């Protein structure tokens, strides 16, 4: 197992190299415009633009810029480790901004994941057990609706209904849990639910399908014949093996959410890394774009590894060498 983990980590390093290289090419080399111009004022002189380029490190050939970026990433820069440079827009160290925003995205992603698991799996189980019943039809109708409903629309509707009209929810924004746990929770409950409803729908359908298939296996019939109560047959024997693909999906979804919950973060004004990525792209703040890309790619790669390891523990038939 350890050899497998080491091998996978080496692949993660290779993936990160390819991702950062391609991102560098896309944002620093290919664009038809000069990023320095956006920060040189309304009537920049050629000397001013040259000075901006020098300060931003854009005066070197692009491959030198990339090598310097990799060097600072591993060895750190004047702001510490990892060396991600400074934001063109705010002149703040990127690592400080990243560490400030990561907890917000993590709060959103992990909280939403817990909510969608709590909603999706029970609905999937109920639906699988009572196939073709009213429960099943309502559950799958719920799944269909929330799979189809765009997240931005759902978010705006929730805000309009629960905050603007009914005044029962906190508005947009984020309050750190260290400042006030209650306020932190109140501000996140709507974004959690909005984000979770989409994923819950997927997870309900997947759980239902897997459980139906598992409940038709011979060992389930054996468990019943042995006299086990039906709930034990479902929860201990049926659900356990049908959840393994769900765990895989959870890992990938959680990793991906770290950079792609941008719509939810924008609608609910959560200053996470997804929203940061979008504003940075529009503002031409390329170091920030690179930083978010690194974090997102790393999150997906690491979560995939974690999921594979958990898979091996859940399913004794899976062994890595």
């Amino acid at each position, binding site marked *: 197992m350890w050899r497998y983990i080491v091998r996978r980590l080496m692949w993660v390093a290779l993936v990160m190299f390819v991702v950062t290289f391609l991102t560098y090419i896309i944002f620093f080399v290919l664009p038809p*415009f000069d*990023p320095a111009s956006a920060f040189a004022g309304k009537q920049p002189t*050629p000397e001013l633009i040259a000075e901006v380029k020098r300060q931003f490190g854009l005066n070197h050939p692009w491959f030198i810029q990339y090598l310097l970026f990799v060097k600072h990433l591993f060895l750190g820069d004047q702001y510490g480790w990892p060396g991600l440079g400074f934001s063109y827009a705010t*002149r703040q160290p990127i690592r400080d901004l990243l560490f400030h925003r990561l907890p917000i995205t993590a709060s959103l992603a992990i909280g939403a994941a817990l909510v969608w698991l709590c909603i999706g799996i029970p609905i999937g189980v109920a639906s699988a057990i009572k196939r073709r019943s*009213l429960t099943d039809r309502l559950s799958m109708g719920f799944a269909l609706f929330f799979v189809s409903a765009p997240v931005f629309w759902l978010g705006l509707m929730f805000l309009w*209904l629960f905050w603007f009209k009914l005044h029962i929810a906190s508005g947009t924004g984020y309050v750190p849990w260290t400042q006030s746990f209650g306020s932190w929770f109140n501000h996140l409950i709507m974004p959690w639910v909005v984000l979770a409803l989409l994923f819950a729908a997927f997870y309900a359908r997947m759980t239902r399908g897997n459980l139906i298939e598992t409940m038709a296996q011979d060992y389930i019939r054996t468990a019943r014949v042995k006299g086990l109560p039906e709930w034990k047959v479902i929860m201990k024997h049926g659900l356990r093996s049908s959840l393994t693909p769900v765990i895989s999906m959870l890992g990938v979804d959680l990793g991906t959410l770290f950079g792609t919950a941008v719509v939810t973060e924008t609608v609910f004004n959560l200053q996470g890394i997804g929203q940061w990525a979008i504003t940075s792209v529009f503002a031409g703040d390329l170091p920030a774009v690179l930083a978010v890309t690194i974090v997102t790619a790393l999150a997906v790669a690491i979560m995939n590894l974690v999921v594979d390891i958990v898979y091996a523990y859940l399913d004794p038939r899976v062994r890595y060498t």
Partner: protein
Amino acid sequence: MGKKRHLLSLVGLALTVTLVAAACGGNSKKSTTSSGTSAQKGGVYRTALEDFGFTDAFDPTGEYLGSAWDLFQTLGRTLINYKHTAGAAGNVLYPDLAQAMPTVSSDGLTYTFKLKPNIKFAPPINRVITSKDIEYSFERMNIQKLLAGYAFYYGPGVIKGFTGKATSAQPISGIETPDPNTIIFHLEAPVGDFLYRMSMPATAPIPREVASCFDNKPAGTYGRYVISSGPYMIQGSDKLDASSCSTLKPISGFDPSSKLVLVRNPNYDQSTDNLRANYVNGIDVRIDSNTDDIFNKISAGSLDGTFASTPPPTVQRTYTTDQSKKDLLKINSADRTWYMVMNMSVAPTDDIHVRKAINYVLDKAAMLQAWGGSTAGTVAEHIMPPVVIGGNLAAGQFNPYASPDNHGDVTKAQAEMKLSKYDSNHDGMCDASACTNTLMINRNYGPWKAEEASVVSQLAKIGIKAKAQELATSAAYQAIQTPKNKVPLGLNVGWGKDYGDAYTFAFPLFAGASIIAANNSNMALVGLTSSIAKSVSAPFPSTAPPSVDSDIATCEKIPATDAARNQCWANLDKKLMNDVVPWAPYLWSNVRDILSTSVTKYDFDQFAGQIAFTQVAVNNNLSPSAS
């Protein structure tokens, strides 16, 4: 089965009733017009915007953004300033830190200012501001690596010894400080609008003991440590440890990602300032990435009004059609012109008749609709907004390309096209190959995209088949601002004043000396010579583009206090529209502010082009939130 269907129907009915009740329930607060009661001191003006968008991280030395300048009116007093009010009155100069307008030598080369005594910096500096502090602000602008965006207003060629290329803060030979209350500027040549340049935020005093710690850091770093000389300060300034550079930490009230909170400067003396009323106890600016949320919060009363945020069309419609809300929508001139630029060095726009024909044919009324209708602005009749030229050439006084209801005049356009060398059979339609697939740069979103169809359709009526290339804002500007790209038409462009004098239009946009190889603001290439064309890799047409350099120089020499100066700029505008025709201006845009009913007094800062924080009053009785 029947029972289940019945149950389902009841559930559906209950849900519907709940949603309808919620929708029709309305808010607990009714929208009423602003009470119009007299302004009271106190409260906090709470606002939000999508992104600060600062160009130099809020460092006053380099910051070149109107909304930042608006905030600097609360943080920085300059020698000369304005009354922070709307209209032409908002562009009139008054002494601020200076006791009176300066003494100017008869040759216009020496300006002597006397400072008001005992005006102090905010905490933690707490000392009296001296002439040395103002001198230092110029020394900072002179340092090349601090990226002072408008240092060119001060040199080279303006203040003696000011080059904009210094490597460190060092004395400037043209600035004298004989005593703590006197500062003297020696100019290389008379500059008629010098006093306007002395109102710019970068000239506000800066304490050397704090800012010098950042002269060797990336440009803009001082932006998180701005020490106020104005009526407000950044919340947390009093807790800043300025005993040494190493003890300095960013002021807590400013986080570029989330907020800027201003509170009263305890060292400010209202009796020394008749330009600012300073009603509110604080100004709370937050970042909110959801534009709809900002306006919902204003409507719900949890924000007091907008700041640098354009209302979406649905919100605008609400405030223009609902009688109870009309008073809460404030509309003021942005002193900005949106236009189509025409490159005079490439075909077919190198022919003045083509350029005139384009001016005639554009359906400016349709373009205004694309921008949101009458609240978005007024149809531009010439280049410079009337407020910028002291009210000269007001609407209706000079409209050389007028058309019925501003829908374009195809007949006149075709008559003009017939005179062009690109209409070989004189049928009013351009038939040269340059009129097929004529490249037109545009932005890929917003009103620019919305107006594109009308523009393409109208140009086709004079035989110009425009091929629009839609790009993101930065890319669009870079495409059109690089002369070697040879782009004939640009629809993505607009220009606003820097201060209330038309020099800030005339020189950067129409002077030959302004033409550069990249980020060129004279996109039409007015005044292009063969040597300039060679230096910027632009083609030089067979007929040299006209030059207005001598007109600009003539107007620039007239002192800004002389009404003849604005008349001179107005005459230049006429010459540009009649004899040069570099643009087809179509919109003088507005700034639209939406207020909550908590606002009891509102004014617009015409200099900065945003709400006047120093004149607004609210009745929310709030205190600034803890940082």
